[in-house]
């Protein structure tokens, strides 16, 4: 077995040193009858055989590389520079543990500090943590944090919030029977949440752009929250939008949660991704997750450590701000590297291209009979209404080798009114030719 380090002779010598006659003597505490079960599993295999098995499974999937592709809804296809994947596979990043011994983990710690800085900058916030599992779990943690800060329980969830975020928040709150109010689904992008905010409201969670693509100024909502002593949590599922759009921090957000996948992290069928979590400096001691901070070593040289760990489970146990331990370290590294490559210039350009592609797509689709573009203002994603059920249309498009968006019914199965709504995203990876193919195919199936 190629991954095992001991030879048969080694095993014998080691058993002798220990002073037992056989390996099972070391398992003597296992209850009788429970040791060495017969397992109906295949025996070990070489690399070649394993590769064959995976290649066969991969072939059963339609790769976005091979077809016109317009899916978004919380996960986006972007080009990842070659340097990103190369660097994250360096042994010293890939095969190290959480940086609990800072003297031999300065590499990890410094990139986390850089990651925290980048996330703070793009969201327009003051501090960010070293990552959460994903955007949806970041949102759930934000609600808990808002409860701790305001000492109130209720969360108001926007009708434009991605249902996976909404449900992840709700599931966690249900554990302690905390009240949450999910506003009606907001396809039109006109909801006014201020009437739902009362003196028991800990926070309002709103997504920008919304799951239907609406880009909104949240400043008034922030004011309405603050007037009632509640916090505004803004969720961003498409982080590249912040290269072009006014960041939540400038609109008055108190906590920004985001899915960082779009920068550096492959689609990978939904995970692992990287949850971003940013807030105001005054709330830092209520944050969940790891934080990396600057300090000095014994010789006075700048160095980095995990800090404020008195918030965390390994120190504070049941009084911790969260139970999170393992986070998304390597995805955060991919994000940091990709963002470093982009820089101000590249990040802005990338966002401009994404937006322009979506505008192009919207223009082409709006000329089709029976198709209407829902959002007036948007970034790279739009909801469109079709004359037919979108799920059916998407299936037919798949039959024509086009991955033509996400039917809203996939995310909102209970909302019959959304049956004909299709969610489409365009990124720098979409060519105009792909868009034309989509339009032609749509004409055939509608």
């Amino acid at each position, binding site marked *: 077995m*190629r*991954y*095992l*380090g001991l030879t048969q002779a080694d095993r014998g010598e*080691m058993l002798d*040193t*220990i002073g037992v006659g056989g*390996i099972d003597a070391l398992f003597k505490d296992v*209850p009788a009858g*429970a040791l060495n*079960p017969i397992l109906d599993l295949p025996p*070990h295999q070489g690399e070649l055989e*394993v*590769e064959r098995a*995976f290649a066969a*499974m*991969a072939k059963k*999937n*339609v790769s*976005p590389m*091979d077809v016109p592709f317009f899916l978004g809804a919380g996960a986006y296809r972007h080009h990842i*520079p070659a340097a990103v994947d*190369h660097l994250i596979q360096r042994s*010293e*990043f*890939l*095969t*190290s543990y959480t940086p609990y011994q*800072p003297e031999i983990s300065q590499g990890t710690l410094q990139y986390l500090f850089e990651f925290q*800085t980048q996330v*703070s900058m793009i969201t327009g916030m*003051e501090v960010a943590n*070293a990552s959460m599992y994903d955007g949806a779990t970041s949102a759930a943690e934000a609600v808990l944090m808002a409860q701790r800060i305001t000492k109130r329980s209720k969360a108001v969830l926007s009708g434009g919030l991605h249902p996976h975020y909404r449900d*992840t928040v709700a599931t966690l709150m*249900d*554990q302690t029977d905390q009240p949450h109010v999910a506003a009606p689904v907001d396809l039109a992008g006109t909801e006014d949440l201020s009437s739902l905010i009362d003196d028991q409201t800990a926070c309002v969670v709103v997504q920008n752009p919304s799951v239907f693509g609406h880009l909104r100024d949240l400043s008034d909502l922030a004011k309405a929250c603050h007037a009632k002593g509640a916090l505004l949590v803004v969720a961003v599922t498409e982080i590249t939008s912040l290269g072009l759009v006014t*960041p939540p921090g400038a609109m008055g957000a108190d906590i920004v949660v985001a*899915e960082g996948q779009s920068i550096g992290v*492959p*689609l*990978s069928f939904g*995970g692992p991704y990287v949850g971003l979590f940013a807030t105001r400096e005054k709330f830092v001691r209520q944050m969940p997750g790891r934080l990396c*901070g600057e300090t000095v*070593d014994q010789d006075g*040289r*700048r*160095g980095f450590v995990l800090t404020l760990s008195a918030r965390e*489970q390994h120190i504070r146990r049941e009084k911790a701000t969260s*139970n999170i331990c*393992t986070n998304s370290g390597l995805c955060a590294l991919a994000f940091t590297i990709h963002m470093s490559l982009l820089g*101000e210039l590249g*990040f802005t*350009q990338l966002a401009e*291209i994404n937006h*322009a592609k*979506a505008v192009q797509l919207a223009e082409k689709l709006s000329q089709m009979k029976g198709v209407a573009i829902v959002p007036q*203002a948007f970034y790279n994603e739009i909801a469109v209404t079709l004359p037919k059920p979108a799920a059916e249309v998407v299936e037919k498009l798949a039959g024509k080798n086009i*991955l033509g968006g*996400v039917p809203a019914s*996939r995310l909102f199965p209970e909302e019959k009114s959304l049956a004909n709504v299709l969610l489409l995203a365009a990124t720098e990876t979409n060519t105009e030719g792909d868009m034309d193919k989509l339009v032609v195919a749509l004409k055939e199936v509608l």
Partner: protein
Amino acid sequence: MNRQGRPTTPHAAANSASTGTITGNRGLQMEEALIFEIGEDGRTGVDLPPPPKVKDRLGGLKRSGKIGLPGLSEPQVIRHFVRLSQKNYSIDAGLYPLGSCTMKHNPRLNEKMARLPGLGDVHPLQPVSTVQGALQVIDQLAGWLKTLTGMPAVAMSPAAGAHGELCGLMAIRAALKARGDVRKRILAPESAHGTNPATAALCGYTVDPIPATADGRVDLDALQAKLGPDVAAIMLTNPNTCGLFERDIKKVADMVHKAGAFFYCDGANFNAIVGKVRPGDLGIDAMHINLHKTFSTPHGGGGPGSGPVVLSDALKDFVPVPYVVHGKDGLTLVESGDAKSFGRMKGFHGQMGMFIRALAYMMSHGADGLKRVAEDSVLSANYVMASLKDIMSPAFEGPCMHEALFDDRFLKDTGVTTLDFAKAMIDEGYHPMTVYFPLVVHGAMLIEPTESESKDSVDAFVNTLRGLAEKAKAGGENVAMFQAAPQLTPRRRLDETRAARSPVLRWKPGSNGAPIDKAAAE
């Protein structure tokens, strides 16, 4: 200085004092500034085409002002991150004996498989007809996990161990609720991982600690005394955090079940028994499996992980969405509409990238190889214990499972602490073991060599620890060496108090990393 007035070699002055070089570098050990100190306006590491000319549809919400991101070329970025990487210890570079973390070899085949077109690049919301292979990976991995644990069901979506614990407790709460039973208390040993009580608290439970016996196991009498109609579950790690198999585990299960409660097992230490013992045969109801421990997916400097949870018959209906089922047209996903499901734990379907790696690892080992994994990991830990028991102080009588736990009695009156001992290991080229955990053992040192190491490697490690223990016991000027360690690392001991007292959590324009004077720092 660059054009923004950012110093390009921010530490040169400070470092030259301590190392005697002009640059602060010491041969291959390079000083490296922050990207914000390296970058300049007008430079980028990507070439993007001009955007198509369109009238913007941003509704007046165009960003004004600069973000402040630095501009770097590709070679600058590569050099920066390569230099950073060289400041990290890693499994690939050496034995990484962190107890409770299972720092085993991370096969590169797994990385290759996770990047295959059709697996690494598929979107989670593609029509299921276009992702049958992806669903097959999940289904096959679920099959392996169920067989290896002897459990009827598995929830695949949890993103890490602690997230798996949360899933397990949510399932338990849902099952209790379904029978109209409200319970408020969770029992957990004092030696438990911090995530156990933290998770219980997230679910609204109070946590009641159970003491351990002198031989490092759950005290059954104390457990019996604490059980009652308000206890929802026990959370027990097995093998436990003292590195021991809970030999009364079936009795524990019986007692817990008799009290109407559930048995949650923390599976962090599954590596010791994989292929060798099925938790399902021990009476547990739920257990998370850290794919990033037992099944070799890389720790990546802190994540990502994956924490599927196997569930007993009593809990198997109370799962999170989504999950994969066999339908008439192949595999499909249940994403909603399951009345017994307790809800959703995260976006999309789980840590697919980790699933692929873990399945590749399992297929590579097979049933025979996985059993060997458990045996060799336990053998190596016991060998470490046997080789050091005369000079260090084992916390409990053996045999141990896959980790050897020592306390600090052997350092008594030496002036050397567990922390000093660990830091001295760093100068010897080793990552320290887990220290000061579990909390129930004074000055704990928890060593997990894993099955990946050759005997020569374990011997070299053992000899190093022997040498250090001898030095500590010899005392004299050695004590100062321990207290000053590490001395040969990119940074020496860091001032954690300063970091926490006035937190600096990001770079800011102006905070340009000017050399920090040691005198001023103190």
